[in-house]
């Protein structure tokens, strides 16, 4: 009695030994409730312990397990084997990032960009605890809530051809998070953040391909955040040109 199997073609790359990545085929059990991550864990547990990849929560909230599944950036914990039946399924490291080993990519560039946009509440004066909490109405929360759902999974960077062609672009997630804080009523850091978002390598590199929003597993819609930042920036630019005495800095 043999169980049905499905083939995964998994990228292997050994730093210092391989000149470039290559695919290795594994036949894993085809279980209706399995996701690609389950298949990878099966490979690592039972077939080849040297396979390297990132994962953690296995339920779509940590953003660790992003990889390319048949050329599309996906969270492998959310990609069901049954949706790719009969296969084979190509599993590759997240696109547009340097490959460290097998399916593991170097995320230093993203981490630097994330820090650059200052994704935290900036206050001119911190309120002491004794003065109580920052109050926020549901309407004020609604303004930015969607953009706060980002789990930093970097699927949007893998989908973005602009970032792929030249990684100097700040990128969808970083801009969306900067935009999220600009919209937060508790934040007073717009004047610090907006110049960073509207640098040449910020929103202006984006050509609104829109694939970042398509692949986002949390519905953040970074493309909308980027275009809205462009609109705000263009309005401010024209106002400052037309009304130099009154334009907002």
């Amino acid at each position: 009695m043999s169980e049905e199997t499905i083939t995964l073609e998994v990228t292997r790359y050994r730093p210092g030994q391989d000149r470039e990545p290559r695919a290795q085929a594994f036949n894993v059990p085809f279980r209706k409730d399995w996701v690609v991550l389950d298949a990878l864990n099966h490979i690592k547990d039972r077939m080849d312990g040297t396979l390297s990849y990132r994962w953690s929560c296995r339920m779509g909230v940590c953003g660790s397990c992003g990889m390319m599944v048949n050329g599309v950036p996906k969270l492998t914990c959310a990609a069901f084997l049954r949706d790719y039946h009969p296969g084979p399924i190509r599993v590759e490291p997240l696109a547009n990032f340097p490959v460290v080993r097998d399916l593991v990519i170097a995320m230093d560039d993203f981490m630097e960009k994330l820090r650059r946009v200052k994704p935290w509440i900036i206050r001119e004066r911190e309120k002491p605890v004794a003065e109580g909490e920052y109050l926020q109405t549901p309407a004020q929360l609604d303004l930015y809530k969607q953009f706060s759902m980002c789990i930093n999974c970097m699927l949007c960077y893998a989908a973005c051809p602009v970032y792929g062609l030249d990684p100097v672009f700040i990128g969808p997630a970083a801009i969306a998070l900067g935009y999220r804080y600009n919209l937060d009523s508790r934040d007073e850091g717009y004047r610090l953040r907006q110049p960073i978002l509207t640098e040449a390598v910020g929103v202006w590199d984006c050509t609104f391909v829109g694939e970042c929003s398509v692949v986002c597993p949390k519905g953040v819609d970074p493309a909308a955040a980027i275009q809205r930042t462009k609109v705000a920036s263009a309005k401010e630019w024209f106002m400052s040109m037309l009304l130099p005495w009154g334009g907002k800095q």
Partner: protein
Amino acid sequence: MSSRKTSEPFWWGLFSVGGVVAAFLVPVHLFLHALAAPLGWIPASPARMQALVGHPLVKVYLFVLIALPLYHWAHRFRFILEDVGLHALRTPIAVLCYGSAVVGTVLTLWVLLSI
């Protein structure tokens, strides 16, 4: 670089306005002047057309219709060239594209003022 930081919103703004003009106005005008008129589907006698175009408000309208979408083209074409790998040439590409749009604007002005 500060020059790029200050000018990008300007070109994007023009691209945006040009895009709006193109979206609302180009299809009907393309149909009318490049298909219906040559194929004789609409009355297009030179006298009638001349009368229509002679009005100053019509000239302003035609200037907006023709000149603004040129900036829409320039911006998109610039990024098409960058996106197919010519990223290193981004400065000369930008100069060529926006420069062409400016030349087009001047020519449009000249034609509309001279007829």
